[in-house]
């Protein structure tokens, strides 16, 4: 069997039903491809063939019995390593969790297992999902499959690269400020960051809890809709999760309804600083969408320029609280701790000093700073107020338009090592993905590198436009 390139979820589903191959053969085929391909790309941190094969056989059995199967049944997926799969490692890209094994399934994993999805393995990420290049992983640097000298984007760089290199058909990532959308854009695939609260975070290693969200990385907008549909919904283990009925058009959008949508183009996202290629691609996409009959309108999101500062105060504040739990005891000890380490305080210091990488330390200390008395109001409260202003910008804009179109990032993928010594310049890669996230809005990254931001709980609008765009692109 030749390697099955460019498979979409729907293609796999049809092929399985047509008995062109079995789910087991497909999984074996993927692992074979990973064995050669991942030597160059370094997308995976851990593979679990046994678990994948036994899950694939369940689907094959259903097919043999002529029983109905779900759309995701037998679909080989890659899972970002900050999402727990019972019995498998979950390092979050950090040395501090090197020896940790998950003791339960995240809700998204449980849901995907129940519809028969096959998990090939866990993918690389920036440590605790902090970064925009996947260079901040404690274990390896993932390369961009389109150009191995460049970064895949981050922090879900392993998941994006795995899908882009055909090592997996779809993947899960997490997005706090752009961690699904940026790598999707850099690797030329689709990445959806759902509305805050649409998907449960139970069993997802927390970075910044007022922003973290799980979402799909896929080859098409329709695939993103299928994965999203499988993982969304209220979960009593995540109090921020909500129950929302997305209706039929999440999967099957109607062109008639999509054509009625007005797309806003915010001035602030188009005022210089865009690379030639990004600008060219965006203009091309706009022209194509106009051809579909969609109307465009210029809008303003006046507080856009403050989003980065706002984000880099709120996130470290939440990071310093969320990462306080890593004490070297409850989540397994790191190998570097000598037996001579006696007191609790010594264990804490040694574990955290050796276990956390530079970006984690930077954010923990910056977070402790902005939360300390005397600075709290000047930084943290101020940032929360600015967050309100940014959200208000979007509320106003959505009175005039239904969807907002922007670039995903000012530039394409940069060279590995290019920005590693200057955190501020790395943070700038996320300036277009952060504002919508602060407002809790859904946004999708569609090749070639544009972002569609929708109203709360209106993933069907942005994915619908994406689906029709793909048909004419």
């Amino acid at each position, binding site marked *: 069997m030749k390697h099955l390139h460019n498979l979409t979820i729907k293609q796999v589903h049809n092929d399985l039903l047509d008995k062109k191959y079995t789910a087991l053969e497909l999984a074996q085929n993927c692992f074979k491809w990973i064995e050669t391909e991942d030597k160059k790309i370094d997308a995976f941190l851990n593979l679990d063939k046994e678990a994948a094969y036994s899950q694939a056989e369940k689907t094959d059995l259903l097919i043999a019995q002529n029983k109905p199967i779900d759309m995701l049944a037998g679909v080989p997926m890659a899972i970002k390593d900050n999402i727990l799969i019972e019995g498998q490692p979950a390092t979050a890209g950090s040395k501090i969790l090197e020896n940790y*094994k998950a*003791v339960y399934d995240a809700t998204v994993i449980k849901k995907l297992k129940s519809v028969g999805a096959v998990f090939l393995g866990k993918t690389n990420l920036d440590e605790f999902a902090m970064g925009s290049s996947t260079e901040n992983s404690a274990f390896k640097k993932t390369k961009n499959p389109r150009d191995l000298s460049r970064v895949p984007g981050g922090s879900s760089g392993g998941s994006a690269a795995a899908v882009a290199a055909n090592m997996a058909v779809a993947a899960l990532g997490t997005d706090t400020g752009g961690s699904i959308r940026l790598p999707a854009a850099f690797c030329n695939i689709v990445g959806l960051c759902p509305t*805050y*609260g649409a998907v449960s975070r139970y069993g997802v290693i927390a970075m910044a*809890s*007022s*922003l973290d969200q799980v979402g799909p990385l896929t080859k098409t907008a329709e695939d993103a809709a299928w994965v999203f549909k499988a993982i969304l919904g209220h979960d*009593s283990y995540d109090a*921020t999760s*909500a129950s929302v009925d997305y209706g039929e058009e999440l999967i099957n959008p109607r062109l008639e309804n999509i054509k009625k949508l007005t797309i806003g183009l915010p001035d602030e996202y188009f005022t210089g600083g865009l690379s030639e290629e990004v600008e060219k691609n965006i203009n091309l996409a706009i022209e194509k969408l106009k051809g579909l009959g969609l109307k465009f309108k210029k809008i303003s999101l006046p*507080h856009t*320029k*403050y989003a*980065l*500062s*706002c984000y*880099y*105060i709120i996130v470290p504040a939440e990071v*310093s609280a969320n990462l*306080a739990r890593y004490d070297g*005891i*409850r989540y*397994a*000890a790191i190998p570097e701790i000598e037996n001579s380490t*006696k*007191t*609790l305080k010594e*264990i*804490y*210091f*040694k574990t*955290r*000093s050796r276990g*956390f990488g*530079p970006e984690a*330390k*930077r954010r*923990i*200390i*910056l977070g*402790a*700073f902005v939360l*300390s*008395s*005397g*600075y709290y109001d*000047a*930084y943290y409260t101020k940032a*929360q*107020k*600015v*967050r*309100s*202003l940014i*959200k208000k910008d979007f509320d106003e804009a959505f009175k005039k338009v239904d969807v907002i179109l922007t670039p995903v990032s000012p530039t394409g993928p940069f060279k590995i090592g290019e920005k590693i010594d200057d*955190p*501020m310049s790395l943070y700038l890669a996320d300036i277009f993905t952060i504002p919508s996230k*602060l407002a*809790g809005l859904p946004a999708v990254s569609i090749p070639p590198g544009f972002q569609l931001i929708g109203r*709360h709980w209106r993933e069907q609008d942005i994915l619908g436009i994406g689906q029709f765009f793909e048909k004419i692109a």
Partner: protein
Amino acid sequence: MRLDIIIGFRLKYEYYNIMATISKKLLEHLAELARIELTADESKKLLKDLKKILKHFEELKELDTTKTAPMTGGTLLRNIFREDEVDFGQKSEMTNIEGRIIDSFPEVEKGFLKVPKVFE
């Protein structure tokens, strides 16, 4: 005087004196609180990075937020209370997970996590 008041006073003192930037001393103090030991090199690089980042944050001062309410979380949901009832399905699932968590402890005594002495 309580320790947090002393620290608070010291932070305030530094805030007004060095205009919202961070000193080596404060950095070391924060690292100590976060239980992170910094090497001299790490401390030097971190101080430089943080100064640059904090300088960037100064732009927020341009915004008048006196009448703006802070957005304190990501969710638009309102809190609702439910009856405090035992969900037996959930309980047995949790008991199961609890068992596996205890099994993964480095040292266990009577179902409790065993750690070194906190006080001598």
